[in-house]
């Protein structure tokens, strides 16, 4: 088998779910004096260990609140785990939310540079790919118009176009395949497939089992922050489906 590109070891993520958020000094001091600083801890993820090999397409299954998004945030570096370690090899392109780094007072052109920079692309790279991004996003004459005058579909298309212009080693997808109208969706799925055919490693979160079966070869099943099962996509998705039907 290929080399390991993502290694997750005993990862746990703890959140503090205090009923009232103490975010100002006055309350903090009062509560400190009254000894009311309560920390109600909540483990969003516990004891998660798995390895992903180069070229694997891993679907992450689980109900709402199972910890899927938290896991992706940990792997993409947005959050740091409370315990355990995550080791990555290769450039990672997180598509957690399309257009997350857009500035709405900025024009499309300016946003391409800004967003590209946020994803860690060098300037020369963005310049060389600029036309490709614009063309794929079908922005046309709107390129020099501030983003606040765009339709939400246009913003999503631009975001998708910027994020997928690189060929990352590791791609993280959090339900982003449903972007834009039917025509663009077809185009974006095609680009996705062409990305997937290369030996990128993919982590994919979706509520659609069909999509996961279509795109992935392996799967993880999370439930209430714990790893229930991991293995080939057929096995895991079959048991996952079964458990959902039983619960009904």
């Amino acid at each position: 088998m290929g080399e390991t590109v993502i290694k997750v070891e005993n990862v746990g993520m703890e959140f503090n779910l205090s009923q009232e958020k103490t975010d100002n000094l006055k309350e903090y001091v009062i509560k400190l004096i009254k000894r009311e600083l309560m920390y109600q801890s909540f483990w969003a993820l516990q004891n998660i260990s798995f390895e992903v090999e180069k070229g694997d397409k891993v679907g992450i299954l689980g109900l709402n609140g199972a910890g899927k998004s938290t896991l992706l945030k940990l792997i993409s570096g947005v959050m740091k785990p409370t315990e355990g370690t995550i080791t990555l090899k290769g450039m990672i392109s997180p598509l957690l939310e399309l257009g997350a780094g857009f500035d709405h007072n900025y024009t499309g052109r300016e946003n391409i540079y800004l967003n590209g920079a946020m994803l860690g692309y060098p300037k020369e790279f963005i310049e060389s790919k600029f036309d490709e991004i614009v063309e794929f996003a079908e922005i046309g004459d709107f390129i020099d118009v501030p983003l606040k005058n765009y339709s939400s579909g246009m913003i999503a298309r631009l975001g998708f176009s910027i994020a997928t212009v690189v060929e990352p080693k590791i791609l993280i997808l959090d339900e982003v395949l449903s972007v834009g109208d039917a025509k663009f969706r077809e185009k974006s799925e095609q680009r996705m497939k062409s990305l997937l055919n290369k030996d990128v490693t993919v982590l994919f979160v979706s509520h659609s089992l069909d999509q996961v079966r279509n795109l992935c070869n392996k799967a993880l099943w999370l439930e209430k922050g714990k790893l229930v099962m991991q293995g080939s996509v057929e096995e895991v998705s079959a048991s996952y489906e079964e458990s959902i039907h039983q619960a009904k």
Partner: protein
Amino acid sequence: MIAEPLINHRFIANFAKYRYLLSELVKRDIKIKYRRSVLGIFWSFLQPLFTMIILTIVFSQLFKSNIENYPVYLLTGKLVFDYYSAGTRAAMGSILSNASMIKKVYIPKYMYSLGVIFSNMVTFLMSLLVLFLVMIATQATFTMFILTALIPIVLLLIFTIGIGLILATLTVFFRDIEHLYGVFVTMLLYATPIMYPAEIVPESFRFIQTLNPLYAIITLFRDSFLYGTFFDMGTLLFATASSLIALALGIGLFYKYQDKFILYI
């Protein structure tokens, strides 16, 4: 590219990777600030100029005998102070105002703070042009010592980054720092000899001036522009030491708590 430093916050590799982002953030900050104003970037000249004119009209008669070139005396102090005030305030809000981005994309978080501090530096450097114009208008003497102004400017930048990082960190956990700091800055403005000569403060309260790093920087700045002398070594040493200490504290505090930011924003 190796993604390991991405997680471990290894400074050098990360900084190289996101250097371009920093310049984009600085550019954005400046562009957005002036986008909807007719005079655009000219405001960074006009604003200090008008303030100087108003304050000169108000105070120059008062301190006529103590200060020979009041407009330049005032402007040297005011420009430095305004940069410090604008830079630290912008840095203070930099983490909170970019919360939505921090939650979604991994970027070294200090980039947001550095971005606004640098963009304010750009406007500060442009406003130096006003200082030159006022110096010409008041027939001040230009000396070679103006070149040494680079030293207080670098110290000012370091000091502002340090204090800015401290404030950015504290504000994430305690939002009311923002209001407290507003009061503090007003107090600092009056405690620092910017509008008035240092000598009018009674001996027993002079320690407020000697212990004020910002005033040390302003003094260095005035030595370069106004008095045309070389720096007093003690002042230079104090300004350098306090800037470096502020920077070390800022970096230390920020790095210690930055992983917790996301849980509070």
